[in-house]
């Protein structure tokens, strides 16, 4: 049977991905129904390793927000959160997630859930933004469960020992609080094992993304946003490691056999910012038809935590989560982008200015101009949003993207 649809060649690993993600949700469902394990809610770049090592099943509301966005239901849910006093200008993961909760709906109902899994504890990290604290506080109030946060400073320029040490202390301070929730003693060896698995998973994820260095690339941004699921929600587990071994092998086979993500790759684009979850499929088709492959992105690279080290699980966790792209100053971000442009042979950059996610929109403080002055790689800015499709003008954006491709081709 053909694996090609609308010029997009599906990765065969997607079946294993579905199973891996399905099993993950089944474990959450099982914990909800049998109460055999405690459930922690965690931010997507939060202390997942610590939570897994202490025996929690871990649920990620941001993953849920992305599912709502991808199922094109956010516009139905957001107004309920807005009516409750949550501004339409704040994170649309937050407003769509809370809105869905208020309407007693979730994409997880298709997987047999009655509602989202009830938390026993909520743990966030402000390394990506401060809105996650407000988001989780809604549920802490609703479920009357404890909430703990790691307050990482935003806009880290030089990553000094004092910043890392502060986060180490906060990680350690979580332990006795989480012990109260689980009723179990923390086991440092178990934490080391989990950090080691997370490291291995992240290294594999890096290798997966770096297959796109090859010309033509065997994977594009739209594949990666789907296949990143396990590194987001199962970081620190064997499941993620097992999945990325399979995916990496398939991509390496693709390279050997000359199979590319975009059948006739002529241009290689870097995507900065969030995906437009409700437009993944149509955008994948648009770029494929334009013989253009989005080979690298800030977003998918954000789940590479290869500083994790089992010999120093607290210190390396703090370091890895403070090094995260989104938490850095523009000067540090520019250094990262400069390297990626060279490594991935980038012809042009698209900055997605997401209306409700300033932290993940890196075009707002002159970075595109400065980077362009440095490397002369053309760029395009498009306005949209991660979940709220009302912020996106599709026709205008298509015209801009088509023109950008012609602009880049004229330079070839």
């Amino acid at each position: 049977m053909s694996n090609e649809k609308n010029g997009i060649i599906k990765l065969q690993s997607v079946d294993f991905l579905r199973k891996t993600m399905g099993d993950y949700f089944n474990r959450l469902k099982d914990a909800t129904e049998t109460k055999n394990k405690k459930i922690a809610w965690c931010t997507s770049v939060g202390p997942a390793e610590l939570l897994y090592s202490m025996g929690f099943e871990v649920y990620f509301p941001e993953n849920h927000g992305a599912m709502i966005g991808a199922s094109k239901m956010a516009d139905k849910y957001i107004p309920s959160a807005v009516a409750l006093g949550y501004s339409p200008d704040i994170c649309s993961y937050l407003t769509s997630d809370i809105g869905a909760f208020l309407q007693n709906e979730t994409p997880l109902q298709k997987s047999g859930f009655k509602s989202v899994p009830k938390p026993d504890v909520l743990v966030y990290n402000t390394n990506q933004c401060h809105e996650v604290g407000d988001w989780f506080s809604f549920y802490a109030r609703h479920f009357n469960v404890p909430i703990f946060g790691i307050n990482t400073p935003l806009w880290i320029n030089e990553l000094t020992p004092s910043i890392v040490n502060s986060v180490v202390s906060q990680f350690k301070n979580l332990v006795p609080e989480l012990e109260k929730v689980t009723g179990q003693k923390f086991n440092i060896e178990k934490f080391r094992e989990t950090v080691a698995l997370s490291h291995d998973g992240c290294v594999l994820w890096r290798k997966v993304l770096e297959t796109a260095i090859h010309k033509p690339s065997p994977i594009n941004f739209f594949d990666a946003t789907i296949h990143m699921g396990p590194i987001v929600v199962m970081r620190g587990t064997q499941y993620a490691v097992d999945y990325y071994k399979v995916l990496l092998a398939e991509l390496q086979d693709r390279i050997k056999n000359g199979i590319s993500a975009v059948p006739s790759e002529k241009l290689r684009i870097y995507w900065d910012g969030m995906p437009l979850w409700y437009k993944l499929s149509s955008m994948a088709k648009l770029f494929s038809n334009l013989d253009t492959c989005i080979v690298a992105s800030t977003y998918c690279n954000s789940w590479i935590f290869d500083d994790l080290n089992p010999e120093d699980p607290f210190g390396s966790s703090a370091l890895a989560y403070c090094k995260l792209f989104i938490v850095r100053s523009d000067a540090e971000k520019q250094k990262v982008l400069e390297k990626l442009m060279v490594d991935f042979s980038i012809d042009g950059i698209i900055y997605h200015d997401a209306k409700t996610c300033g932290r993940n929109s890196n075009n707002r403080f002159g970075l595109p101009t400065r980077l362009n002055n440095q490397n002369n790689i053309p760029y395009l800015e498009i306005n949209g949003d991660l979940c709220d499709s009302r912020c996106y003008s599709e026709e205008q954006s298509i015209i801009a993207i088509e023109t950008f491709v012609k602009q880049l081709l004229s330079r070839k």
Partner: protein
Amino acid sequence: MYKIGIDLGSSYTKGVLIDDNHKIVDYYLTRTGFDFQKAANKIIDKFSPNNKILFPVYTCGYGRDELKIPFVANSEIMALSKAVFAIYKKKCSVIDIGGQDTKYIKINDLGQVDKFKMNRKCAAGTGSFIEELAFRMDVSPLEFSNYAKQATEEVRINSYCTVFAISEIIGMVKKGATLPNIIMGIYNSVIARSIELSPIEDFLVLTGGIPANHSFMIKLFQKKFVNCESPENSQFLAAWGCVLLNS
């Protein structure tokens, strides 16, 4: 034999008839409405009785892919750039103000697009902003320039939003602002939105339906940018550029 270029824009469809020397010999403008093919037919019907037309037609704009007749679709930004460079033959910046979009384009010495930027998802700074305010003030947009000439002082309109701009204008009327001064404020608001797309460092070319129909706005641009021109019939340039791109 003649070729036809058609710019199927959000508000208006612009058509040009091009001879073998790539010169515009006729042009026609009609409202786009809901049916792109119908709008294109009006252009073709206008030109075809007296001229032998060579198909396909060359299109750009929002309806560029929507015709049921043979066509070659183009990017309006590339088409406009081609036309502007054909006229001036030097590097320049272009500000194109249309019904729904305002665009900034930087063209290099070779006539290539170095950079472009479009307005955000917002009507402020576009023709729709002017049309909506004109409707609410019950003044024809085509009379705007004549009123603006009579302005005695600038009234500043700060709102980004068309609806709130109306509220702001109502407040000004209450305080005794005159119609010419308000229209001057509207013009300056559109100019402010368009020049924030990018720094303008070189020769500036104004194009699109708004400069073409609001001559006084061109004068206001020229006060800010000494090296600034707007070619005649500039709303037809993208349609012409479609043909040039394929010649």
